[in-house]
């Protein structure tokens, strides 16, 4: 019973972010995309609210977390519903392509669901710290410092961003206890919420049929990588959801038309994992390079929503940690800039087997091969995705140079899962690059 209530609690999260579905930029978008925006935005709002209540000393309960979030969302939805909505272009798709693409999406989600329910893709981090934080936050009625800031709690990584354990804590409050066996299943929700984002936002630039096909491949590849990386029950699926949404917003609508999506996605990324901040930063660097090479008239314009969202998320979490006495850094992590270049050979040797993504590397190799067939004119607009893919892999390579002793174990623990946002970015780059060149949305201006 608690498992069912826990999953129902996750299905209530869109109510907290429902305002996003009534925002002028999304109100005429397909229903699935509006639902995704509500879910992703709802989790962000829940996290911000949880931090605020902890700072104010308001105890977390179903009512104290749920009712204000719903009230705020309803108020915003009412205000936004009065503003004129932006048109959303829809086009036809051959039934055979639609059926094949949706079958691929369903099969991709099914493989993740099977692996989550069976425990084949379970993350041990769930029982070691993600779930641990959620149960303590529920017991303490908020972000808890008494136990988790203790010297014998550094294994819980108290400085890690709070979004994922906050959502677990919300589910625990509704269910009455944390149903540990049900937590891995929620990984499917994060991927399922990202599917409409990829499909409908990619559709704006490459057309319906191509977007359906790319989304099918994206779902199968990302789900296989999440299974191979044993990510069911950890924060990786949520991180992939937010980093992918931020990237799609940057790639497809590098303008203010979908600024809200970019703001929320960037906020969600930095509030989910520290790697989220790196991913958003790399996306911004790619946008700036695209502005530079593409000679856009208003550089920074596309990057501003991402920067704003990341800044709010990071400063909020930093402020909460300072006020609550939680650690600002992770003492378990390696000392910065203490590099050992002796590890280079081990890193290069271990990378291929840890990037197999459950598909013998085909999930990476196929989009990489397709990118080679893309005309160079298109590569400039793909720079945000390429910067994220290449930059994240480079960052990890440098990180492994910091390892104490043999980095093999560290690589096998982290590389298969931490690289999934890069895999997602590579697929989106190839998908966007290979698609037909549609005119950009109306307010995306360039110097010609």
């Amino acid at each position, binding site marked *: 019973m608690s498992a069912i209530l826990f999953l129902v609690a996750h299905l209530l999260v869109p109510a907290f972010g429902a305002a996003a579905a009534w925002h002028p930029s999304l109100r005429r978008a397909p229903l699935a995309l509006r639902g995704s925006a509500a879910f992703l935005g709802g989790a962000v709002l829940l996290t911000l609210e949880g931090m605020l209540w902890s700072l104010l000393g308001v105890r977390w309960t179903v009512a104290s977390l749920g009712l204000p979030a719903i009230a705020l969302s309803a108020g915003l939805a009412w205000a936004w519903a009065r503003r004129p909505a932006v048109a959303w272009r829809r086009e036809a798709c051959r039934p055979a392509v639609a059926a094949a693409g949706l079958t691929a999406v369903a099969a991709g989600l099914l493989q993740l669901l099977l692996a989550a329910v069976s425990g084949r893709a379970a993350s041990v981090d769930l029982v070691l710290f993600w779930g641990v934080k959620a149960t303590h936050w529920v017991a303490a009625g908020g972000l808890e410092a008494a136990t988790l800031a203790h010297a014998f709690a550094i294994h819980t990584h108290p400085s890690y961003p709070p979004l994922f354990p906050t959502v677990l804590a919300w589910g625990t409050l509704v269910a009455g206890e944390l149903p540990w066996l049900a937590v891995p299943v929620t990984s499917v929700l994060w991927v399922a919420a990202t599917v409409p984002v990829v499909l409908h936002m990619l559709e704006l630039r490459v057309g319906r049929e191509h977007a359906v096909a790319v989304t099918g491949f994206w779902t199968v590849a990302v789900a296989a990588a999440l299974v191979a990386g044993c990510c069911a029950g950890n924060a990786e699926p949520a991180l992939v959801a937010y980093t992918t949404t931020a990237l799609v917003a940057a790639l497809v609508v590098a303008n203010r038309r979908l600024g809200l999506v970019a703001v929320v996605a960037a906020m969600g990324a930095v509030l989910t994992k520290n790697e989220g901040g790196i991913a958003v930063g790399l996306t911004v660097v790619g946008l700036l390079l695209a502005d530079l090479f593409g000679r856009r008239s208003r550089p920074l314009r596309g990057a501003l929503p991402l920067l704003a969202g990341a800044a709010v998320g990071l400063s909020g979490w930093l402020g909460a940690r300072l006020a609550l006495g939680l650690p600002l850094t992770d003492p378990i992590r390696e000392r910065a800039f203490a590099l050992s270049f002796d590890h280079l050979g081990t890193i290069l040797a271990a990378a291929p087997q840890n990037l197999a993504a459950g598909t013998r590397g*085909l999930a990476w190799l196929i989009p990489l091969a397709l990118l080679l067939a893309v005309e160079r004119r298109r590569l400039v607009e793909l720079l945000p995705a390429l910067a994220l893919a290449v930059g994240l892999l480079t960052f990890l390579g440098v990180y492994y140079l910091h390892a104490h002793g043999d980095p093999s174990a560290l690589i096998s623990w982290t590389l298969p899962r931490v690289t999934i946002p890069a895999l997602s970015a590579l697929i989106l780059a190839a998908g966007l690059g290979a698609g037909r060149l549609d005119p950009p949305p109306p307010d995306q201006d360039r110097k010609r």
Partner: protein
Amino acid sequence: MRWLGRSETVAWLRQPWPWLVAAALLLAFPIRFWAKPVGRAMLAVPSSPVERVNPELGRTWRLLREVAPRIPAGATFTVRAATDEAEMEAFMVAVGLLPHGRPVPSSYYGVPQPGFGSEAEWVVAVGEVSLAGEGTEVVARSKDGLLLRRRPHP
């Protein structure tokens, strides 16, 4: 960017079919796994969230889950295991399963913590661990370990 890419995108790439065929190719891997006996054997719901990826940790989780209701809220508890690594992992799991208790480690990342774990009111022994002469009495037994209570100091 002149040194990168082609002058024109390959025409067939603009079609949806290459992507759909590639998706089908990737799906062959999970289909192959779940069709094998090892995959079919995994279709039953596990009794611990991590037993399929780390059977030893799965057993530890089951033991701690079983004994957790017997440890009163606010009581200090520790865990003991045969190896430093197993003891650390068991401690990490115990902190999550006993959010109302007060965790005190016997060792932390392999470093013994005298004066902490040795003073805990409750001890969970994971697997075969000798606690002879430590002034404890067995409260509950399971196939994966024991729950013990420390006798008050005279």
